[in-house]
């Protein structure tokens, strides 16, 4: 890992993903031949700078979680590159991957299944340290205690088991585990979706405080636009395996260019009945990622679709400085 860059050269982004694809084969029959593919992620590119949060939004099944897992190499990509601090890790063998594992960690959605029920909270948080060579028990306990206090848990709780904590506290344990290796990038896979609204706010604030303190970068995966708006600097909207719009948060919310983004935004409830908005209601369901529609993936549901949308897939292009959208009509 080149920590110190030559003066003048801009530091490489913490994460740069180029044209990432993940196609899951559907195996059938006795010989387990691939009868087709699920095009879960189909050409996704983005970058995340130090201290930046990229929100990745989309409906369930659009491939956003697959993106997160592929970036972490929990799933091997079909093609494309994943640069972490300038180094492509998309083809590294497992063993060689270990130093990069220290730099990226994950927080999961479900605070119940993401913690081993047979380990104490302290063991769970200390385990990444143990894996990466902190064998001295007392030093590890001290480090874990510090992490506990940082995420708002008491050190006396280190010897409790996960079932003795509430959902929010468990999520804090998950955050402490992700922080243990002092990573540069944390992937949050719907980290607050399973929590009560009041607890959501606490956890989000904790994540934002940690970001300021440690210059952390986040890939924040969520289907909740309000949460994403709060925490993100930039937002990428995914639809059926592709990014359809990618820009900074303010632009996205005030000036959405892709019809799908428009529809998503008009579905966000506004806490003021006096405000009348133009509603764009999308009909139908998300098509199957096994047989995505030709051309623009969104055309069967798009109110503005024209012939070209049915034949030709629109490229994600810059329609204004820093504003990318994949739509023929813009």
């Amino acid at each position: 890992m080149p920590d110190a860059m030559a003066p003048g050269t801009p530091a490489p982004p913490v994460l740069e993903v180029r044209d990432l694809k993940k196609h899951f084969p559907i195996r059938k029959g006795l010989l387990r031949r691939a009868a087709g593919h699920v095009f879960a992620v189909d050409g996704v590119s983005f970058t995340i700078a130090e201290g930046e949060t990229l929100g990745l939004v989309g409906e369930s099944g659009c491939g956003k979680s697959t993106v997160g897992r592929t970036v972490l190499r929990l799933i091997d990509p079909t093609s494309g590159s994943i640069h972490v601090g300038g180094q492509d890790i998309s083809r590294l063998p497992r063993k060689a991957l270990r130093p990069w594992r220290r730099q990226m960690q994950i927080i999961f959605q479900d605070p119940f299944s993401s913690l081993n029920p047979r380990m104490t909270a302290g063991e769970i948080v200390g385990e990444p340290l143990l894996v990466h060579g902190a064998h001295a028990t007392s030093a590890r306990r001290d480090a874990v205690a510090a992490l506990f206090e940082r995420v708002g848990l008491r050190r006396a709780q280190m010897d409790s088991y996960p079932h003795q904590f509430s959902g929010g506290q468990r999520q804090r344990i998950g955050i402490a585990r992700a922080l243990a290796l002092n990573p540069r990038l944390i992937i949050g896979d719907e980290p607050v979706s399973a929590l009560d609204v009041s607890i959501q706010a606490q956890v989000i604030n904790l994540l934002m405080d940690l970001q300021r303190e440690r210059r952390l970068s986040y890939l924040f995966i969520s289907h909740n636009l309000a949460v994403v708006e709060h925490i993100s600097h930039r937002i990428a909207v995914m639809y059926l395996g592709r990014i359809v719009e990618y820009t900074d948060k303010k632009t996205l919310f005030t000036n959405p260019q892709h019809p799908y983004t428009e529809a998503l935004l008009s579905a966000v409830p506004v806490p003021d009945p006096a405000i009348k908005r133009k509603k764009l209601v999308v009909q139908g369901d998300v098509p199957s990622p096994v047989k995505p529609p030709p051309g623009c993936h969104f055309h069967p549901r798009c109110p503005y679709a024209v012939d070209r949308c049915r034949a030709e897939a629109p490229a994600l292009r810059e329609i204004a400085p820093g504003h990318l959208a994949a739509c023929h009509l813009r």
Partner: protein
Amino acid sequence: MSTIDHDAELLRAGAHVRGAWGTAGFLIRRYPLGAAGAVIVIVFVLAALLANVVATFDPTATSSRNSLTPPGSVYWLGADFMGRDVFSRIVHGARISLAVSVGATALGCAAGIIVGLMSGYLGGWVDLVVQRIMDIMQALPLLVMALVMAASLGPSLQNTIIAIAIALVPNIARVIRSSTLSLREQPFVEAARATGMSELRIAVRHVLPNTLAPLIVLATAQLGSAILTEASLSFLGLGVPEPHPSWGRMLSESAAEYIRTAPWLVIFPGIAISLAVFGTNLLGDALRDMLDPRERT
């Protein structure tokens, strides 16, 4: 590290801190059936360990004069057709039953855990091949499988243990495999993988401990069925050979001929077998609950 004495602090705060005896009392109140099972098992273990002290006669000493003496003050549980004391033979038989059931279950579990974990965790063709072999083994009932094994290995204590252990493997492997299949997809396993932990360590640290609950229940049930299988093998003459007293053989020697004329020859070994199986099952159920941290309070 903090130097707080938690127990002292808790006591000062008025909390109820239990000592070792208090904990035992709590467990008995919480798991009365399990405690009963534990008592039965402890009695059998003590009988096995102290057989020489407890037994009133040499279990192999014959005496034609006392053949088929009914239960009384000399022969507490009667004597068999060779004049051997039934009580002493049952007490010594506990040794055989215990050795066979614990030995076979431990051996079978060890092999079953390795096979099941490998099969479930690695998946793919390893899983396919291993599971087909397990299918073939499971197509035969436990007793028949053990019979085949015992017949091909020859009758001896050691071979009886191995034969029963092999017959137990498919059951254990199946249970471990199915829990492994669902556990390996759990987010906490993914989290471990994301830290760069080796797959072997994930399997042992994260997957295996979570398969323990069904395993313990199954293992204790197998303790019981191992006792039964040993008894059946000995009944059929393929188990532990003479002169070792085995509950199963005590039954088989007497069942057909003496059930009407000397029922104590059938009843008492039968009770010993039933009690041992019953006790291990009760204990197993309670152990499963106790070992699950979610059940602890």
